[in-house]
């Protein structure tokens, strides 16, 4: 009995022919309430738009208000496999390393000497390339320094199209994240990258490192430095053709058929060591495994 009552109650609620009410409201009632909400929301949206507009006006076009979260710039490696920082391939299986070579090719294309000379300026090395604005007069667009692909020598992919991958001497390219206005290094000492075996956990309170497996490494440019002339960075808008400096590491006789954990760090006196939690601030770690049999 109650169920029937409920059913007809529902029906009546959706459309009550007697009072011509749809969902408990007449057309005019619906109209009024909708109008109210429309006005209310237009007003709210207007206020939101206004506050957003005011906020956007306070922003500088060339430099974000806060950069404190970027005190330690991040570091990343190329080539990068999908989800993880693992480079695993088999020298005998072309497909497995060809992907990496192609990725590097693609990544390095903008650094081709022809492009660099066309767009960028040749700067004086070992000093900051400062292009400050004078008061309100913007010194734009700002020039950028050339970073020629050839600087990477053996890892440039010009002479060795496969970046050493097929012979078990792979190149890994390291870059430091762009941060506007950052001047790494101090007293003319350029920041440089060092790679070493990474300590990793194999169990509770048990650590291992693969120092003996890592073998000999070569850095390009020599000593793995990021030359000072590439700093500071003035932002995408002011410095359109900025070429981010790179460092390549070539592993000459790394132990094959085994996982090797490597960590590379930036060394610069004025870059603070990042927090424990952030594994990519000022350092980057990856796993390398080259299968030969």
């Amino acid at each position, binding site marked *: 009995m109650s169920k029937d009552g409920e059913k007809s109650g529902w029906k009546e609620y959706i459309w009550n022919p007697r009072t011509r009410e749809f969902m408990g409201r007449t057309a005019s009632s619906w109209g009024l309430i909708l109008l109210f909400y429309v006005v209310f929301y237009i007003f709210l949206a207007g*206020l*939101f738009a206004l506050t957003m507009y005011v906020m*956007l006006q306070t922003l500088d076009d*060339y430099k974000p208000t806060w950069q404190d979260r*970027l005190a330690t710039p*991040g570091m990343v490696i190329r080539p990068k496999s999908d989800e993880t920082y693992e480079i695993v391939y088999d020298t005998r299986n072309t497909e497995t390393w060809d992907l990496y070579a192609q990725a590097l090719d693609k990544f390095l294309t903008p650094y081709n000497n022809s492009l660099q000379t066309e767009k960028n300026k040749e700067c004086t090395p070992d000093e900051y390339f400062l292009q400050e604005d004078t008061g309100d007069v913007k010194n734009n667009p700002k020039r950028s320094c050339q970073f020629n692909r050839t600087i990477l020598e053996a890892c440039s992919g010009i002479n060795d199209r496969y970046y050493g991958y097929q012979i078990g001497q792979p190149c890994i390219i390291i870059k430091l994240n762009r*941060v506007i206005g950052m001047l790494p290094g101090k007293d003319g000492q350029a920041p440089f990258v060092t790679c070493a075996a990474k300590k990793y956990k194999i169990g509770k309170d048990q650590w291992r490192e693969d120092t003996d497996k890592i073998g000999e490494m070569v850095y390009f440019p020599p000593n793995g430095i990021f030359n000072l002339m590439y700093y500071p960075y003035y*932002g995408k808008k002011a410095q359109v053709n*900025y070429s981010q400096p790179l460092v390549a590491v070539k592993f000459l006789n790394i132990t094959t058929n085994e996982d090797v954990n490597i960590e590379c760090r930036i060394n610069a006196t004025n870059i603070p060591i990042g927090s424990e939690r952030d594994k990519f601030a000022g350092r980057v770690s990856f796993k390398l495994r080259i299968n030969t049999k």
Partner: protein
Amino acid sequence: MGYGRSDSYRVATTQDKDDRSPKKKKGAKDMDDLKKEVPITEHKMSIEEVCRKYQTDIVQGLTNAKAAEYLIRDGPNALTPPPTTPEWVKFCRQLFGGFSVLLWTGAILCFLAYAIQAATEDDPAGDNVSIVLTAVVVITGCFSYFQEAKSSKIMESFKNMVPQQALVIREGEKVQINAEEVVGGDLVEVKGGDRIPADIRVVSAHGCKVDNSSLTGESEPQSRSPDCTHDNPLETRNIAFFSTNCVEGTARGIVICTGDNTVMGRIATLTSGLETGKTPIAKEIEHFIHIITGVAVFLGLTFFILAIVLGYSWLEAVIFLIGIIVANVPEGLLATVTVCLTLTAKRMAKKNCLVKNLEAVETLGSTSTICSDKTGTLTQNRMTVAHMWFDNQIHEADTTEDQSGASFDKSSITWISLARVAALCNRAQFKAGQDQLPILKRDVAGDASESALLKCIELSCGSVRAMRDRNKKVAEIPFNSTNKYQLSVHETEDLNDNRYLLVMKGAPERVLECCSTILVQGKEQPLDEELKEAFQNAYMELGGLGERVLGFCHVLLPEDQYPKGFAFDTDDVNFQTKDLCFVGLMSMIDPPRAAVPDAVGKCRSAGIKVIMVTGDHPITAKAIAKGVGIISEGNETVEDIAARLNIPVSQVNPRDAKACVCHGTDLKDLSQDQMDDILRNHTEIVFARTSPQQKLIIVEGCQRLGAIVAVTGDGVNDSPALKKADIGVAMGISGSDVSKQAADMILLDDNFASIVTGVEEGRLIFDNLKKSIAYTLTSNIPEITPFLLFIIVNIPLPLGTITILCIDLGTDMVPAISLAYEAAESDIMKRQPRNPFRDKLVNERLISIAYGQIVIVCLNPHALGGFFAYFVILAENGFLPTTLVGIRLNWDDRSCNDLEDTYGQQWTYEQRKIVEFTCHTAFFVSIVVVQWADVIICKTRRNSVFQQGMRNKILIFGLFEETALAAFLSYCPGMDVALRMYPLKPSWWFCAFPYSFLIFVYDEVRKLLIRRNPGGWVERETYY
């Protein structure tokens, strides 16, 4: 149907529906059994038969061995306490009731998601959410549990009263034992002041009187004797009942029933078997939980499916599901409601209303009918001299509790004589050691009318004891029902006067018969017809006021006939009892309490109907009803109209009479429709001479008409009605244990006026709960919108699960609770009681205001304030809104550590997550900021804040507390690890200020419109 239709107090009190309920098949049989007549037959047996039945001896009593055997067989002589739910069940109910199930689901899903993540990845993110959710459920569960335990502890105090002792005779020796150890067949002795330890068959009695009021409602003590006077065991004189009191005299009897088998035990068992409905607030909250759960599950599943369709992995979809559920459920709300109710309960306890069941607080507020017992609740439960007639004139005595009333001329010689008669012909006396107490508070040994006289004389003429010492008593004939008078002979005060003074008091007509003269202005005058008529008129008038009238007369016996040392023989009266001198009349009533008329008036203006239900006589009931305003001045009953117009009662149109005095015997002949008719058409009703089951019928009748009924009562006979009522109110001082068990609330001072305070508090808490809920809900809704935008527009998540919990259980709690301290907006006692069908705690307007905003657009001031802060932080860190849309996939990609912002800078995963969590913190802080305005808005529903003022100190404290807590969560070191909340730049606190200001202005305008156009469109659409 099914109710006892006899005048006797049958113990049948339940409705038939109890029999029908299938789930209680086993219980039903017991119930039927209980409803039958009391199966006591011992009163019809001879004493020898009873002795044989219990194998006891009329002189020696039981043997110890036998007693021990019976004790093992029958169990202790105590009432089984009503079945209590085990503590762990109560705890589990708190842990898994309400919203907890949803949150448990969330926690489990979260844990599963974490487990899967942990199994597939080496370095899973911490599983904070599932831990926090579990903690939330357990903590709020424990909290509610302890709140409940606290209020039930109050009841424990009542149970642990001093253990009763009983004097039994075993193996011929009198021994004092614990009443619990009394067994059937025991020979017990009771004396005045004792509590009867079990149902006993009286075998011998000396002037024994028992007070059966807790069982039958009759306030007059009844005498007990060994003879069977009635077939009905409840009416017969030779049975005394368990837990009634022996007022005076002594008696010896054989125990025939113990514990639960006693008459009292049966009523108690029956009462605990009555099922009661849910309280209105429980229904409201359940209704509310259903809505919220429905919406939460619906939205959760919708977005779960949407997420799957949009191509998210199912793991992510589950996380969305949890987020939406957590955002939807106002986790702190139930705890807030509990705290608000507890606070009110505490406040009420201070005003002498002890609340057993927290929810009863609000029930009292929605009460629309109060069925009040008369004795002790409306009246002082203390006979007091109300009027006197002497010198052919009625004088009014002061009946107020504090002696602030009118006084009369005490100089008349007649008054002095009357006082002397009343003092001397009186066996009552003050108990020792009470000299410091005011006279009216002193305990008196003696019956009610004599005590009244004693106190009256003591008040107006000084020490009665001294007067009695001066006039030594020589002889006395105590009151008995054949004479209907009491008489004593005293020496006179004047030592030179050797005459004896004979004083007499008794039923006025009997006393008058003994008189030939009357004292007027100190002079004896012959009692002529004129004076006799004056006497008759006075007697009728006082009787008509419902008062008990006594006549007084005296005579100085002539010295020649009764010289000093005359031996007065009271058995074979050898002295003059005729031709006495009539002195005057004194009439007594149990006067109404001083605060009651005012309280009844308040109830009336609050739209609450007050019905008097009493076991007393209609005339007395009506007099008191008129005295306290239950029958207001100028309102007439059918009988009054008939008397005024001088026509038979049957010719009066019952519709003309607003008031009605209904006799219990009439009541049992009424059909349900007639009953409804009376309750509906009379605004002022008095039920007199009612039995327990009739009380139940009255309560049910009121409930049938849709009223929420409060019942007050003190006796065991009231307990079924107390239990059946929406809220039963028992008396703390005079109430029996059984009635206290059945009640939801206890009036510690037995005063009706306390109920009114309770009603006021109840109404206030209902209003304030609405405010609390509106406050909580408005912050709850914006918690969903971030998830919706996250899924649909693919922006980084603006508000995390943990931060949502911080709002719901952290910053929102104290302000929401502080609203319970809010003062009333208008005179809530001038309003009609709320209609439980229409005025809901959470009505659809509130829900539609709250949820309507997400359904139409994902906007409301809270959310906008939060989003604004979110956009500000991201933009100031380099991610402009244009970049943000669609960034989510890369943003949440752990392996992408060079994500480019609008300025061309690159961010690692952790760096941008810190910014994201800073955004969560800012969103959280923004909600707190908007909640500042919100709590001020929610203070009032109609008035402007400027009218209401900011006098609520707790609320101001709440504002500071929530701000301090927000600052603590944001700035305390370690919070980044524990809750992933980060310090905000000072400027980010101000992002939500415009929105805070906006909703304040908006709501002030809304309230202004509501006030300007009462009942207008704005009120209809937006008033909650």
